Each structure stands twice: as C-alpha cells, then as structure tokens.
C-alpha cells in the first residue's frame, strides 16, 4: 500500500470536512467554547491537540497488538496523559503567556473525547502510518473550527486579530462599538451552530 494511497488520503481528508470532529461528531465542544475568545490561544490549542492526537495514535497503533483488551482504556489514558504533560511543559517553557491563558484546558485535553474516540475507533485497528494521518486530520479538523470561531469572536469582540488592532480608531469615533456578546461563551455556540448549518446545507449526505 502506497504512502498516499486512496485509503490513506481518506483517513486524512474525511475528518477535515465530512466527519469533522466538532461540527459532525460534536466532540470537543467544551474546549471549543472555552478557548476561542481570542485567536492566539485557539491556534495553540488546535496545534496542541493535533500533535497529541497524532502522536497518541501512532504510539497506540504500534503497540495495538500487545495491549490486553481489558485494560486498553487505561493504557490509552496513560499514553495521552504523558503526551499532554509533555505539551503542557513545553508550552510553559516557551509560550508562558498562552499557557496561562489556556490554563486548565491544556490539561483537560486528556478528557477530550476526540482523543479517546480516535484511539478506540482507529488506532486500535490500523497501522501506524494511516493512524498518524487520521490523527493529524482529526486534529486539524478540530483546529480549523477553533480558528474560524476565534477569528469571528476576536474580530467582532475586540476589533483585533492576534492582539493587533484591525478596526481603526476612526470607526470607534464614528460610533462603532465592539460586540460584547462575542466575548461570551454563547457566541461560540451560535458560531459553531452557523458552521454546522452551512456545512449541512452544502453537503446533502449530512442532512438527517
């Protein structure tokens, strides 16, 4: 089987759109609501999850034949917890401000349903390379939604992107106001709902 065979491409592509973990499977919603009020933490969170899912998928896939079925959840958790701790320490060392902003949510990646879901559903039954692609695809699918939501929330909520002021002062002088609702958690719900709405309107196979 080639490195980028049709099946492998599918493992990478489907979680990006058709099986998107946030908008179709509705997983990882809590962190999508919590870290998206600004773009920077959303990007970091998306990347962290991508790295962790991909690595955990590879590791579990490598040892999948030696894991006893009865204690597989515990083993998966140990792998994920180790990776999360690594990422958390790296963030603290090199991006302290962001890690403070993300606070508990990096640690809570352990409980992110996307991880356990991919490990159980894909890594336990597939070879390392497809598992890696699947992990990266799911992570990026998650990150994509986070970034889209965060762009809207930060832009309309604070008039800035990545903390750089985009909307000029002259707009504010003319009576423009930042939308405070965008900084509240319900806005993330509404925006994710809009993305789900758009996606289902486009893709007939997703309509129930």
């Amino acid at each position: 089987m080639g490195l980028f065979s049709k099946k492998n491409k599918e493992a990478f592509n489907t979680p990006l759109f058709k099986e998107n973990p946030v908008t179709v499977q509705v997983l990882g919603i809590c962190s999508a609501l919590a870290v998206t009020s600004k773009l920077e933490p959303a990007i970091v969170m998306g990347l962290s999850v991508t790295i962790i899912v991909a690595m955990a998928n590879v590791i579990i896939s490598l040892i999948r034949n030696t894991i006893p079925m009865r204690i597989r959840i515990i083993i998966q958790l140990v792998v994920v917890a180790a990776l999360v701790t690594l990422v958390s320490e790296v963030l603290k060392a090199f991006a302290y401000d962001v890690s403070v902003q993300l606070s508990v949510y990096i640690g809570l990646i352990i409980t992110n349903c996307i991880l356990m879901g991919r490990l159980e559903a894909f890594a336990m039954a597939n070879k390392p390379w497809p598992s890696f692609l699947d992990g990266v695809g799911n992570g990026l699918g998650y990150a994509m939604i986070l970034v889209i939501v965060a762009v809207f929330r930060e832009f309309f909520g604070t008039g800035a992107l990545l903390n750089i002021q985009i909307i000029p002062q002259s707009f504010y002088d003319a009576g423009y106001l930042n939308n405070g609702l965008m900084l509240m958690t319900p806005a993330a719900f509404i925006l994710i709902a809009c993305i789900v709405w758009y996606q289902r309107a486009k893709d007939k196979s997703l309509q129930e």
Partner: protein
Amino acid sequence: MKFLRNYLNKIKPNFEEGGKLHAFRSLFDGFETFLFVPNDTSKSGVNIHDAIDSKRIMSLVVISLLPAMLLGMYNIGLQNALAAGTAETTSWFSMFLYGLLVMLPKIAVSYIVGLGIEFTVAQWKNEEIHEGFLVSGILIPMIVPVGCPLWILALATAFAVIFAKEVFGGTGMNIVNVALIARAFIFFAYPSVISGDTVWVATESICGFGATVDGYTCATALQYVANGQEIMGAAGTALSTTDMLFGFMPGSIGETSVIAIAIGAAILLYTGVASWKTMLSVFVGGIVMLFVFADKLPAGMPIWEHLLLGGFCFGAVFMATDPVTSARTETGKYIYGFGIGAMTIIIRVLNPGYPEGMMLAILLMNVVAPFIDYCVVQSNVNARAKRLTKKN
C-alpha cells in the same frame, strides 16, 4: 376600495408562475392578503375557518400598542425639553413632533430589516409571507432606549429574526419572544447603549425641533431604586406618582406609561387576543415576591409603585401574553405568569447588576413554558387514569 381590488387583480398575473415579476410573488401575496381577506378555499379535508386569522390578530395587537407608542413619542419630546430646561416654553405638539422624528427612523429600520429577512426567507423556501413580524417590528423600537443607535437596532433585529425565529421555522414556531431576543442581544452585546445614565433621554435637536443638551445624564427610575436613591426625573427633580402613571419619566420608549399600556390591555382583553390569566398572574407573582422581599426594598416607597416602574406593565401586557411563546394550557398560564412576575422581582432585588428583570424573566419562562404545559397535561392524564382504575 373597489379600485384597489381591481388594480391588484390587474397586476396579479405578473406575479404568478411564469410572470415577469415572479421573484416578488411573496411580497405581492403578503400585501394582498394584508389588504383583503383572501378568498382561497381549502382543497382537502374538513376545515373550520374563523373570521379572525393571524393577520387580524397581529393588526389588533399593533392597534393596542398605539397608545403606548404615541405617549412614548410625546414623552421623548417632554424628557428632552425637561433636560434642556425649556419645558415651560415648548408646546406639547412640538414635543410630540420631536418624538415622532426620533421614533420614525427606529420603526423604519426595524421593519425594513425584519421584513426584508422575512421576505427573503419566504421567497427562498417558497412559502407565503408570515405576518408575525408586524408585531415584533413595532415592539422592538418600543423596548429600546431612545439613545440606541440605528445600526445596532438593525443588527439586533436581524439577529433576532434569524436566530430566534427563522431557524426554528418562522412565525408561530419560535420558542422565545423575538422582540425580547433583539433587546437581549443589545443588552449583552452593547451594554453601553441600553444601560447607564446617558441613553434614556434624547439630547440631539432634529430639524429644529427639540434642544441639544451636552453632557446630560439621567438614569432610569429603577436604576435610582437599585442605587437606593430618590427617583429623579429628567429635570432633576423627584418624580411624583402621577408622573409614573402617565409615564413622564426616562425609560425605554414604550414602557413608561402605565395608563397607555392599560388602554392597550383593555383592547387586547376585550377582543380576546391576550389571556387575562397570564396578565393577572404576572401581577400576582410580582406582588407576592415584593412582599417576600419587603425588608430588602428601599424604605419610604409604597410596594405597588415598584410595579409601575420599568417594563413590568409593558412586559405583562404585551410580552408575557404572546400566544406563541407563552404556556398554552389554561392552568399553565397561571403558573407561567406567576413565574414571570416572581422572577422579575427576584432579579430586580437580588441582582445588583440588573436593575430591570422583566426581559430576562420572560425569556426564562418562555423556555420553561413547554415543560409547564407538559406537566399540566400529564397530571391531567394521570388524574383521569386514576379515576378510571378506581372505578373498576
């Protein structure tokens, strides 16, 4: 009238299938049925046609809102004159004209944005135009402060129509009150234009009417109550109970005048559009809660005066009784209304950040209303089942 009918008949073919103005058929249809009772008959099944359809109901509600709106317009001018200190020299007519000039753009924006979305959706889904926005469109400008900018009003209307109504399936399918969602949107997204002490009195002169007052501040009566201060009017003197009854005080445009709202309530009750059970129980709920919190209320203010202030009466008469979002069972209406009244006072008394609680109380009970109905129906089912088993 004959000539209008003939004219409509003449241009009608343009809007039918294949006509050159087919794209605007829902607009034509909405306008035609607004003017004339449609003479379409049902094609299947047995149907009962009542003389009063939803267009007539909506028109009745709009008519009952008129007194509150006209008095609100006059009040805008009066508050402006009081703020400028020219109340003695300004005639009531120029006050009213000033209020009209302030109010008209708001009504226009609300209707254009809301109906625009409704027409687009109706056209897109190939449905008839729903008439629900007739009422929402006039309610929205009446429940915002006079200082609310037009673009925020437009944004809030669009948000409310799309997310509170169209996504649920249009008129009659909404879970929460559309006009209140528009207000809640402004309340959470742009708190500075709907609270505080600079937005409740118009301070800009328009077309020579009214006066421009710089750096003027005056809070709403409820804000003064929440701060434990004496209630001040726009002129800087204490408000009398008569002012509160007639509504000559700063506040959202339509909500201030208890007398005008009472006229509206009389129309609604006489025509049977609104339920007296809901209205009454809102007031009962409010009064009960006021007695519960009697020791937390500011001293020296009669308890019933709390019901005159803010949006309590307006909400009880025009918002709580919305047939779509309120409870539908007869017993449920008592519970629903009581919940609104009680919740309003709880929010007013216990939450220092929100001097007014009517909006949030109604929205909360809107969400609970289906559950109330379910419980009422279910308890009736259980009671009857019990009766049946007892007999055997």
